[in-house]
């Protein structure tokens, strides 16, 4: 029983990381109606920005803000000078553009940092594990969960309680209507893409001490983020959060009974949910 509790706690922490990644993907999918195939590359950019700032002596908190900001800035540029110019074209063009952008970012990271990956030790106060009696819980995992929760709440406040947030929500629901109301939809889309990209970068920064970073390290996380996105429901921002936590806990619990199947399980869950309810757990469309 203790082990089950330990795995649930572990899964909640990991799930929060998945949720941060997937929330960014969900914002972009909702606003632009295009799957962001560069999300994994933006995750890697966030990880490398966090690494670079930490190695030059910046506090870890500053490095995480840098991870968000760096990826958000890159997302801003991708949308403004790429996606925005393809909006009138076919959906396939946007997908191909994002796919190509991901490859370009990966190769630039290789040119700058080489093919050998990097690691980062978290600050001393986040090192080691807490003895909960029934398990040792690494402090850094607790930190991951708290930062994940904090960033999700911050995005929730931004989207639910601010004017720009209401515009983003409206943009996701009724894009044409937002345009008719005189809101600059172009700027809205760019800001939304930057926000989503920033979330990917933040996830990369948070994950750095656990997963390390290399140019392609975001691809694994992107695959999970897509599963979470589909499971939570396309267009449902908070469905992504719930699904991220669900996947994290399910993956962790599977280790108790069928460890080899822990990766397989998340794809099985997605397939089953899609077969039973194609809208996902919380999707409205």
């Amino acid at each position, binding site marked *: 029983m*203790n*082990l089950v509790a*330990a*795995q649930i706690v*572990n*899964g909640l*922490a*990991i799930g929060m990381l998945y949720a941060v990644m997937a929330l960014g993907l969900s914002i972009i999918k909702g606003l632009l109606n295009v799957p962001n195939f560069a999300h994994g590359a933006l995750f890697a950019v966030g990880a490398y920005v966090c690494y670079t700032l930490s190695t030059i002596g910046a506090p870890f908190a500053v490095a995480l803000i840098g991870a968000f900001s760096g990826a958000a800035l890159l997302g801003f540029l991708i949308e403004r000078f790429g996606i925005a110019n393809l909006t009138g074209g076919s959906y396939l063009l946007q997908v191909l553009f994002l796919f190509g952008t991901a490859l370009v970012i990966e190769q630039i990271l*290789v040119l700058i940092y080489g*093919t*050998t*990956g*990097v*690691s*980062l*030790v*978290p600050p001393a106060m986040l*090192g*080691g*594990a807490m003895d909960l009696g029934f*398990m*040792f819980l*690494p*402090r*850094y*995992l607790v930190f991951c969960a708290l930062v994940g929760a904090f960033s999700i709440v911050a995005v929730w406040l931004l989207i639910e309680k601010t004017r720009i947030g209401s515009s983003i929500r409206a943009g996701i629901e009724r894009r044409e209507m937002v345009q008719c109301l005189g809101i600059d939809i172009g700027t809205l889309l760019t800001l939304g893409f930057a926000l989503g990209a920033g979330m990917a970068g933040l996830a990369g920064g948070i994950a750095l*001490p*656990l*997963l*390390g970073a*290399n*140019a*392609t390290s975001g691809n*694994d*996380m992107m695959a999970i983020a897509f599963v979470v996105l589909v499971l939570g429901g396309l267009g449902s921002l908070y469905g992504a959060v719930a699904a991220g936590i669900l996947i994290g806990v399910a*993956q*962790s619990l599977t*280790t*108790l009974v069928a*460890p*080899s*199947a*822990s*990766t*397989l399980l998340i794809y099985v869950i997605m397939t089953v949910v899609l077969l039973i309810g194609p809208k996902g757990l919380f999707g409205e469309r």
Partner: protein
Amino acid sequence: MTPSGFSRRSVLQALAASGCVAPGFAWAQAAAGDLNIALLSQNSGNFATHGEVVFKGATIALEERGHTILGRKINLLRRDDEGKPAIGVRRLTELVETSQVKFFIGNASSAVGLAESEIAAREKIVQYAGGGSDEFTGARCNPYTFQWSASPYTASSTTLEYVRKAHPNAKRVYTLTVDYAFGHSLLKYTREAAPELGFELAGNDMHPLGERQYTQYFNKALAVKPDVILLLTAGSDFLAAVRQLSSYGLKKVIVAAPWAAELDELKELTPQMRAGLILGLNYHSSINTPVNKAFVAAAAKRYQMLPTYAMAYAYDTFRTIFLAMEKAKSVDSTAVARVMEGMQLDSVHGPTSIDARTHQTNRPYYVCLCKQPDAQKNDQDIADLVFQGDKPQPAALNQCSRT
């Protein structure tokens, strides 16, 4: 210019530009008495550096004998297998058909090497493999494939021998194993070797290849209070596992890995993450033998670097093949393969032999202890060589059907 717009010269230029002339040129060289040997490795993608390092080792072996053997000029042909079995097989087939290649070494990947071994057996080409699978010298052994890397049995037993020596009171071992042939081999041999050394296997988890999240496995492992966590996994999986294990800040649990990564790969980890890690290795530049000292000096002079596993593999395998050619007084692959069976030589490992039936190179396996951060003199100073062992795989555990 002909009426159709093509001239003989333009066709030849086009052929030369497309590389179609190269195989014909190589054939002409071979026919004239040159010896074409091949190096198939990864030269593109994220692991392109691996191919470069293997090439450096091969170059030192060729330069050592002035690019000649038995009065023939040696031509080293390089091909990129992209780390993919199908590509490796295709490139090797092309080399055999167009350049009469009869000797090759290749990728450190067992999957690529085993696929190529089928061609080696069929076309009677000597292959000196560097992968970790025990199938090269076991179930898929053949008269032309030889194995340079140590047997996974030797790797497991040597690593556990060191753990026993360094930690006499350690008892309970928990294993985390990657769920494919390589991990299964290591687990099988760990289960053989551990009880003989007085260890009790407290549990095992199989993890899927490419797993990135390991804390759930370590929660399970730590629940049974092991003295040793033995990581039977490799490459980026191993590095991710070590990163996450280090986040627990464990002081009393010994972490060991019989066959997980080469020292170069450990540079991905911070010194704090790898401190105290016990790591089994196929090669270490500080091996104190005459052949290795000369090789290290040559590498330092030629490339200003300490040799790594990949470089040593290429150097030592080609060097052994050349020694066998001299002994056979022939470059015929069958004659050379027969000489290599049971051959005794001084290699980078010191006195070395090749098993006549399985073709396993009987050589030592090495154990390193990663240094504490404040003990490192520089970025290269990652670990000390602390132990070596050479216990061969017991005959009863070998599945090679050759007699």
